[in-house]
C-alpha cells in the first residue's frame, strides 16, 4: 500500500471509530426529526385567548369585530372610560380599543386609540385598522350615493398567467422550488465544508499537540500527510452523508407505507372528497412535476459532485494550514473568521440575489469566484446555466485549489514544527518563504 493510502485509511478509521462520529451519525437525524416534530407541534398549539375591550361610543363598529380563537372582543361601550383605563393595569383584558363618537369620518380616522400594557403585534393592529377602514369606506360610499354592490362587482382580481417563450406553460412558485433545490445542495456543501474542515483542523492540531508529527514526517512528506488527512476525513464525511441518505430513504419508505395503509382504511365519503380534490389539483400538480423533471437533474448532480469536491478540498487546505499554525483550537478563531465569511456570503447571495436574478452580474460573478462558486453556482444551476460557465467556474475553482494547496502545504510544513507562539498573519506570510 502506498503511504498516501495508508494515511487516508488511518484518518478514515480514526474518524469513523470516534465515538462522537457514531453518536453524530445516528443522533443528528433523530435530533433533526425531533426538532421538526417539535416545531410542527408548536405551530398547531393554540395561542392564548386575548380579550379586547371595545369602548365604541359611536356604536357603529363593535358588530364588525369578529371574535376568533385568538382574540375575543367584548363590548364595554357602556362602562366609564376611566374605569376601563384603570383596569388595564390590573390586566383584566389585553387591551382597550377606544372609538369616540365623532360625527365626521375624517376626524374619526385620527381619534381612534388602542391602549394596552404590552405593545400589540403589528398584524393585530393592521387587522383592526382594516376592519374599521372597511366600515368607514362603506359608509363613505353610501354617503356619496354610490352603489356598494356595483363597486364590489367592478373590482377586478388579476392573476397573471406565466408562459415561457418556448410556448410551454410556466408555473408560479417554480423559482422558489428551484432555489430550494439549488439552495439545499449549496447549503449541504457549506455545512460539509464547515463541519469536516473543522475536523481536518482538529486532527492536525491533535497531531501537533501529541507531538507525533515529527515521527510521522520523518517517514512521509508533510504534503502527503496533509492530503491524506483531507481525503480520509472527507471519506468519513461522505460515509456519514450516505448513512443519512439511507436512513432518510428508509424513513420515507416506512412513512409512506404507513400512510397508505391509513388511506386505505378511510373509505366512503372522505374518499370521494379526496378524489374530487385530486382531480382539481391534478392538472397543476402534473405541470409542477413535469417542470421538476425538466430541471437539469443530471447537470445538478454531476456539478454537485465536482463543486463538492473542489469546494471541500479548497477550504480544508485552509483549515489544515490553520491547524498547523496554531497550538490549540482557541487560537484558531482569528484565522477562521476570514474563511467562514465567504461561505456565509455565498449563501446570502444565493438566497437574495440568485432568486431575483439568477443570471445577473452579481450572481454570475460570484458563481465564478472560487470561494463562493460552489454554493452560488449550485443555486444557479436549477435555473439553467450555460455549460461553458459551469466549466469555466470549475476550472477556476480547481486551479485555485492547486494554488492554495501549494501555499497551504508550505505553511503546514513550517507550522507543524512550531510550538509555543501564537502566530500572526505576518508570520504566516514569512513561513511561505522558508
Amino acid at each position, binding site marked *: 500500500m502506498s*503511504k498516501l493510502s495508508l494515511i487516508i485509511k488511518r484518518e478514515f478509521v480514526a474518524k469513523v471509530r470516534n465515538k462522537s462520529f457514531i453518536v453524530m451519525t445516528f443522533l443528528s437525524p433523530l435530533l433533526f426529526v425531533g426538532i421538526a416534530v417539535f416545531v410542527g407541534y408548536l405551530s398547531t398549539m393554540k395561542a392564548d385567548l386575548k380579550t379586547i375591550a371595545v369602548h365604541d361610543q359611536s356604536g357603529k363598529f363593535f358588530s364588525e369585530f369578529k371574535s376568533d380563537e385568538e382574540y375575543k372582543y367584548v363590548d364595554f361601550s357602556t362602562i366609564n372610560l376611566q374605569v376601563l383605563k384603570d383596569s388595564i393595569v390590573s390586566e383584566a383584558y389585553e387591551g382597550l380599543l377606544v372609538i369616540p363618537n365623532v360625527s365626521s369620518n375624517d376626524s374619526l380616522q385620527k381619534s381612534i386609540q388602542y391602549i394596552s400594557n404590552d405593545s400589540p403585534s403589528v398584524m393585530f393592529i393592521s387587522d383592526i385598522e382594516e376592519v374599521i377602514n372597511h366600515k368607514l369606506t362603506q359608509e363613505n360610499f353610501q354617503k356619496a350615493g354610490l352603489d356598494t354592490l356595483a363597486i364590489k362587482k367592478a373590482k377586478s382580481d388579476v392573476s397573471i398567467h406565466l408562459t415561457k417563450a418556448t410556448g410551454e406553460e410556466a408555473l408560479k412558485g417554480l423559482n422558489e422550488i428551484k432555489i430550494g433545490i439549488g439552495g439545499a445542495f449549496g447549503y449541504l456543501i457549506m455545512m460539509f465544508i464547515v463541519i469536516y474542515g473543522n475536523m481536518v483542523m482538529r486532527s492536525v492540531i491533535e497531531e501537533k499537540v501529541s507531538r*507525533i508529527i*515529527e515521527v510521522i514526517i520523518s*517517514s*512521509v512528506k508533510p504534503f502527503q500527510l496533509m492530503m491524506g488527512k483531507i481525503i480520509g476525513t472527507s471519506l468519513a464525511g461522505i460515509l456519514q452523508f450516505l448513512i443519512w441518505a439511507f436512513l432518510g430513504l428508509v424513513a420515507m419508505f416506512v412513512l409512506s407505507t404507513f400512510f397508505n395503509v391509513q388511506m386505505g382504511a378511510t373509505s366512503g365519503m372522505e374518499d370521494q372528497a379526496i378524489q374530487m380534490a385530486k382531480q382539481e389539483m391534478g392538472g397543476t400538480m402534473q405541470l409542477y412535476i413535469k417542470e421538476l423533471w425538466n430541471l437539469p437533474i443530471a447537470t445538478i448532480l454531476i456539478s454537485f459532485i465536482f463543486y463538492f469536491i473542489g469546494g471541500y478540498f479548497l477550504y480544508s487546505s485552509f483549515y489544515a494550514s490553520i491547524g498547523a499554525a496554531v497550538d490549540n483550537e482557541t487560537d484558531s478563531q482569528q484565522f477562521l473568521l476570514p474563511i467562514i465569511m465567504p461561505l456565509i456570503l455565498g449563501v446570502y447571495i444565493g438566497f437574495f440575489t440568485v432568486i431575483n436574478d439568477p443570471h445577473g452580474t452579481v450572481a454570475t460573478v460570484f458563481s465564478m469566484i472560487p470561494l463562493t462558486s460552489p454554493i452560488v453556482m449550485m443555486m444557479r444551476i436549477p435555473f439553467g446555466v450555460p455549460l461553458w460557465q459551469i466549466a469555466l467556474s470549475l476550472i477556476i475553482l480547481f486551479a485555485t485549489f492547486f494554488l492554495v494547496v501549494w501555499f497551504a502545504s508550505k505553511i503546514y510544513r513550517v507550522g507543524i*514544527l512550531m510550538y509555543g507562539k501564537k502566530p500572526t498573519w505576518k508570520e504566516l506570510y*514569512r513561513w511561505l518563504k*522558508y
Partner: protein
Amino acid sequence: MSNILEVKNVVKQYGDYTALNEVSLTVPKGSIYGLLGPNGAGKTSLIRIINQITMPDSGEIILDGEKLNPNHVSTIGYMPEERGLYKTMKVGEQCLYLAQLKGLSKAEAKRELDYWFDRLEIQGWWNKKMQELSKGMAQKVQFVVTVLHKPKLLILDEPFSGFDPVNANLIKDEIIELNRKGTSVIFSTHRMESVEEMCDHIALIHKSNKLIEGKLSDVKKQFRTNEYEVGILTDNVEGLMYDLSQKFTLSQTDFKSLHDELKLQINIGTSTPNELLNLLIQRGQVTHFMEKIPSVNDIFIKTVSDK
C-alpha cells in the same frame, strides 16, 4: 563507504537567523556518535535535515555512500526529543501503521513487533490505547517504533529523558546490542555521563557552528592539560615541595585515600610523566599517580564558555 553519514557544509537559515553555519560532520559506520551542544545550538535543526523533515539551504548529506534521497527514510530510525504517539489509537495498530509508513509490509511489521514486544516484555499492551499507558511505558513503545524497521542509522534525541533508571538501563542495553549488530547510532544529548559511557565519537555544536569533532579519545587527548594527581608519603614535605616547584607548577588538591599523605596536583608542562615519577620515587612512598583526563563535561563547559 566506511562512513554511514557525511554532512558537508550544511547551512540552514530561518529568516535572518542562522541555525546551522557551514556544519560538516562525519559519522563512521558502526559508531556511537554523540552530538553535543547547549540548547538552541542547532542540533535539532541538523537532525531534522538528516531526517529530511526540512531541507538545508546549501550543503550536502551523504548517507551510506549515497546522496540523501526519499528512499533513505526506511534506513533511518528517529526518536525525537518531544515524544508523542496517537493518544486514542491502540498500541498495536499504531506501531503497525508507523512501521508501514517506514516501508515495511504488514506481515513484516507484525513479525518485528512480536519480537520487540516479547523482548521488552510488553506483549499485553497490544490492545491498550496510548492514553492508558504511563509515560515510561509510552517511551518503551516509542523506542520500539523507532527501531522496528531495522534502521542502519539510529538517531536518538535525548533518548533517556523520561525513563526511570531501570528502564533507562534496559534501553541502553538494547541500543548497545543494536550497535553490536552493526547499527550506527547518533545521540543528541546534554547528559554527559551517558556520552562518556557509550559514545566512541563526539561532535560539539555551539551557536550554529561545529567546534569539536572526533574520536572521543582523540578529543580528550586534544584537551589534556598535563595535570597529574599525586599522593606521596614523605618525611620532608617542604623540601619536596621546593624541588617540585622548581620544575613544575603545583596546586592543592584532594582525593579519597587511605593515608594521610601529601596530595598535589602537578602540571608537568612539556616534561614527561616519567620525569615527575622519578623525582617522586626518590623522595618517598608514592601512593597515588593519575593523569587528570578531562571529562566530556569539562570539555563541553570549557569549549562553550570560551566562545
